[in-house]
């Protein structure tokens, strides 16, 4: 009798495996606003200088903010010296996805920023906004030195022409971006202009011009414009065989 029961349970388990033992679901996570207690979002930059793209990229950070309602996901401003720049800024966005079980399989991730404005005053090939990883010193605060803590592996990009103001801009992350999501801690992302990522300015330089994408941070009032990370996942269903 006990063997028969066990066989029935095994057949039942097999049927469950055959008829999709996993379920697709989504978890949408958000940074928290200032005063941050979990995951910061904001802007870091090097400003008030007059340098080539190579040097402004590699220089030390000179400023940061994580308390404004909106901030630059990326901006570059030219100086009055030919082919030099006075400001370069980057965005840092952290999320806590640890409410997912450790053995969760993530199948897709979308990183979304609610745009405030996108401007490109340079002629030539327009910029893109790249999503990369970041490693700020703290999960709840930004410092100037975090300017140097953004990666160069691009997880997703949106071209300037497709950047939307007063709407969500959805970056579908590739496999490297999906792998950047932590199931046990804080997931750390960054944004920067592709000119910055690639160390290659493809626009036509002109004096005192800007190229930027400004997006809302978690510090805005209300909940309809917050940065967010939407994770599609499958969670294995556990089958427990009980003895007779």
């Amino acid at each position, binding site marked *: 009798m006990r063997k028969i029961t066990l066989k029935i349970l095994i057949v039942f388990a097999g049927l469950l495996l055959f008829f999709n033992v996993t379920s697709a679901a989504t978890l949408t996570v*958000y940074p928290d606003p200032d*005063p941050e207690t*979990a995951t910061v979002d904001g802007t870091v930059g090097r400003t008030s200088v007059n340098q080539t793209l190579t040097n402004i990229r590699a220089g030390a950070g000179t400023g940061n903010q994580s308390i404004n309602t909106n901030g630059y996901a990326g901006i570059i401003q030219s100086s009055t010296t030919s082919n030099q720049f006075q400001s370069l800024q980057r965005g840092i966005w952290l999320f*806590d996805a640890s409410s997912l079980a450790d053995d969760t399989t993530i199948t897709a991730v979308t990183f979304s920023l609610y745009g405030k404005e996108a401007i490109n005053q340079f002629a030539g090939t327009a910029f893109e906004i790249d999503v990369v990883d970041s490693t700020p010193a703290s999960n709840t605060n930004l410092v100037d030195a975090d300017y140097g803590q953004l990666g160069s592996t691009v997880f997703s990009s949106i071209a300037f022409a497709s950047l939307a103001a007063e709407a969500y801009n959805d970056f579908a992350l590739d496999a490297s971006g999906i792998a950047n999501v932590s199931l046990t801690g*804080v997931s750390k992302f960054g944004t920067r202009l592709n000119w910055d990522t690639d160390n290659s300015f493809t626009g036509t330089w002109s004096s005192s011009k800007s190229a930027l994408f400004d997006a809302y941070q978690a510090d805005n009032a209300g*909940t309809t414009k917050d940065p967010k990370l939407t994770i599609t996942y499958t969670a294995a269903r556990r089958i427990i065989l009980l003895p007779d």
Partner: protein
Amino acid sequence: MMIKFHKNLILIPLCVVVFMISAFFLTNLGGLPNTGGIADKYTDYKFWYIRRNDAGFIIEAAVRFYEGNYETKVIDGVSKNVYVRSKRLDIPDLGYLGDQEVRIETNGNKTILYKPDDFGAIKTDNELRLFLNKQIDKDRGRATIPEQSELLDISKVK
């Protein structure tokens, strides 16, 4: 003498009612929450996460609550009155929500957890916001920030 007494009996309560109605409308036209016209502290909420099942129904929402006030800030060269959060509300501050389940964040913070038993069978963020707006309205010590409901486009619900 008798006639004059009866007039006052009607006029005084009438004036009181007119005054109360005027005060109510003036308060709300001014964009302030209905807390008698004066609010020392404001409150709002932010999502930590929203979890949906494979049918798209919201099955969990973990929510962070805050206290703040309005301050004048110069933004893009223009002086504006903006909401500034001063602290995140912890469990002892949230007694008005009742005995709610909590979820622990990575850093150990406790976040209020809501489930379909609380908000029903819903799919959209706006439906969740409508439920949460009613939750923070229970706070007698703080007024809900107007932006919390103004940003909610009721016409898009359902």
